[in-house]
């Protein structure tokens, strides 16, 4: 070391703030003893560094149970809540898809991901918090880094250092204390100089560019080349019929097969009066209650299926008027005097030009439409008694 450099180093030290004073011990017993002495001396802000966990150190240092567990718990629960709510949002709110006939909110399917995210966030979060607390964020290093002290306590010796923020800290007294308890190589540690972080360092930028190029290249190769090579193609090339392709097994060549004759979809009731004379159907009464919900449902279905011909108000004046034989009005005396069963029969079987609607409109919806037609009819034929308001 030249005279000049030593001189500048001393000048630097004068400006630096002391972080702590530490000493090294040779045996686990001596470090445990030193920790006990430090507690007796009244030091509260001191730390012990050992190459392996020394049993009984916690009680010697009179450490309180660590609060890091609560941090882990908090981060873990946050991760769990985030994962669960995210999946809820994706599969219920933003993009609901029916998967396997299950409800949108199928929480058992969310459990594995929630569990993974909980563990991941708790582990990574705990380490991040510990590093941030230990380095005193935004510092990216600890004052003890790259010291002789750290070199030894991470391999063959045991260290104790009293930090300057301790209320009883006094340079000479701490030195005395350490030498009294048998410490060797007592050393003063200074707060590191905080260098501004240079984002536009050419090396750093170069590194980012290289990483970006490698990532893009690997991604391009994987998605465009690798996945089209065996064995990665094995998932795509299977002994099955792809959709919209020809089927060599059947003479008609169709890939999609019709269900077996007489198949009934779950939850669907086939038309129960199929093939029976009209008189049976005509005498049916409407099974649905004459309620607001039913009429609203009927209105919706009517507007969808009936209004293109019969018009929104049942007058037979729709936009298709003139292109086909004009549909009759639903306000004629004939229709008004029909029983509900007769209208049901016409919707189900069709009449003249009107086709059957039993495939498009479910049974309950047909009855709901009939209620709505009655509402339309009554609106044009209101009686005086209808004006009476509810008391």
């Amino acid at each position, binding site marked *: 070391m030249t005279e000049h450099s030593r001189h500048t180093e001393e000048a630097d030290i004068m400006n630096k703030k002391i972080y702590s004073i530490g000493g090294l011990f040779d045996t686990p017993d001596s470090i445990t003893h030193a920790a006990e002495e430090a507690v007796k001396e009244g030091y509260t802000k001191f730390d012990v560094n050992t190459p392996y966990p020394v*049993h009984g150190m916690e009680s010697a240092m009179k450490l309180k149970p660590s609060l890091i567990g609560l941090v882990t718990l908090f981060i873990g629960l946050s991760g769990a809540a985030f994962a669960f709510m995210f999946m809820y949002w994706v599969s219920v709110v933003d993009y609901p898809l029916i998967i396997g006939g299950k409800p949108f909110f199928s929480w058992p399917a969310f459990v594995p991901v929630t569990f993974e995210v909980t563990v991941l966030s708790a582990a990574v979060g705990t380490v991040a918090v510990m590093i941030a607390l230990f380095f005193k964020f935004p510092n990216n290093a600890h004052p003890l880094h790259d010291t002789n002290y750290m070199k030894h306590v991470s391999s063959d010796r045991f260290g104790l250092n009293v930090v300057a923020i301790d209320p009883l800290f006094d340079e000479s007294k701490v030195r005395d204390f350490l030498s009294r308890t048998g410490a060797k190589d007592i050393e003063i540690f200074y707060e590191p100089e905080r260098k501004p972080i240079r984002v536009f360092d050419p090396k750093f930028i170069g590194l980012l560019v290289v990483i970006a190029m490698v990532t893009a290249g690997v991604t391009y190769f994987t998605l465009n080349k690798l996945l089209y090579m065996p064995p990665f193609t094995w998932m795509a090339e299977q002994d099955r019929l792809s959709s919209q392709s020809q089927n060599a097994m059947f003479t008609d060549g169709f890939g999609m097969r019709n269900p077996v004759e007489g198949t009934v979809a779950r939850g669907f009731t086939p038309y129960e009066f199929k093939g029976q004379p009209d008189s049976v159907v005509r005498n049916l009464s409407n099974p649905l209650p004459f309620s607001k919900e039913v009429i609203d449902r009927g209105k919706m279905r009517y507007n969808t299926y009936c209004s293109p011909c019969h018009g929104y108000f049942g007058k037979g004046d729709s936009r298709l008027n003139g292109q086909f034989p004009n549909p009759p009005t639903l306000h004629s005396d004939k229709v008004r005097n029909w029983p509900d069963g007769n209208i049901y029969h016409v919707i189900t079987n069709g009449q003249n030009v009107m086709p059957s609607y039993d495939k498009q409109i479910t049974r309950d919806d047909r009855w709901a439409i009939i209620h709505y037609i009655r509402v339309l009819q009554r609106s044009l034929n209101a009686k005086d008694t209808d004006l009476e308001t509810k008391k």
Partner: protein
Amino acid sequence: MEYQKKELPDKVKNTGFLFAGIGLLLIAVSYILDPRREAFNNIIGLTFFASIAIGALALVALEYISGAVWSVPFRRVSEFIASSLPLVLVFAIPLFLMLGMLFHWTHPEVVSADKLLSGKSPYLNIPFFIGRTIGVILVLYVFYALFTRNSRKQDESKEQGLTRTNVKLSAAFMPVAGIGLTLLSIDWIMSLEPHWYSTIFGVYYISATLLAGLAATTYASVSLNEAGYLIPGVNKDHYYSLGALMFAITNFWAYIAFSQFLLIWYANIPEESIWFVMRWEGGWKYISILLIFVRFVIPYAGLLSQPSKSNPKRLKQISIFILIAHFFDLYWLIMPTFSKTVVFSFYELGFPLFVVGVVILAFYYQTKKHNLVAVGDPKLQRGLDFHL
């Protein structure tokens, strides 16, 4: 420090006789009143008992094969609990006489009319069924006899080679116990619904078995150590290890149970999901939901914090609770086959009481004959010096 052999107080024997006596009385009354229902409870009793005994034996083997030192001071506790293993066959004898009442694959006319059952008949037939149960118990008992014989010889001779022999034996024991427990669970629990199958079912029962054996060992070890019957030196770090292992296996059970549920629920194949549907109707829904809390949430919460794992009082409470939860789990597995609606009364209490009594008595008579601590084990001193 030297181990001083002490006689267990008569209180232990009396408690054992009390439990076994009340249990036996209830069993006798129940068998007279409703033989079919009590036969189902007999299966619960059999599987409950088998899992305590085999679980304790598995812990012994686990200690040898993993080279663990912390559990050496109370390995004998596990060995003594496992000594009740051959008595499992006594529980099976009444069932062997009533197989027709319990398993509908035992009826030839049912099997011949059922394609699935006739396909399974090379496995599910009465002689092979009885042979399997006896075979599994006997083979495991041979392992028990060899483990304990070597360990007792070591008490006198202090020969280290015996530990090495036991390590080799435990390596052989592990796959045998795994297969044996799988067979027992398939035979006694899964074949109650012979159309249903779950490939993870054996692992489910294995996790429950380890937990039952560990809970029994923990309760006995902690109680004996508090009363000073074990060698001095067993401390909080040993307790912590017991608690941590119980915590781990509780999680393992939950993991397996949920995996089984998730796959069946997801695939929703009728012949698989019917098993859960049976446990969701007629009031079983509440039992199923309760099971999640009893078997997982409460033990998990009870053992989560660091101090609770080394608190002897908490450990004893939780291990008793885990044994009750294990019984509850088996009740949930077995009884829906007997009844479409939830049934629970004194019929169900006879067998668990009897099993507890029998295990206590088996333990008590073992302590009369043998040391409660493996004094000749070369790992004993390291086990006592164990620190976390």
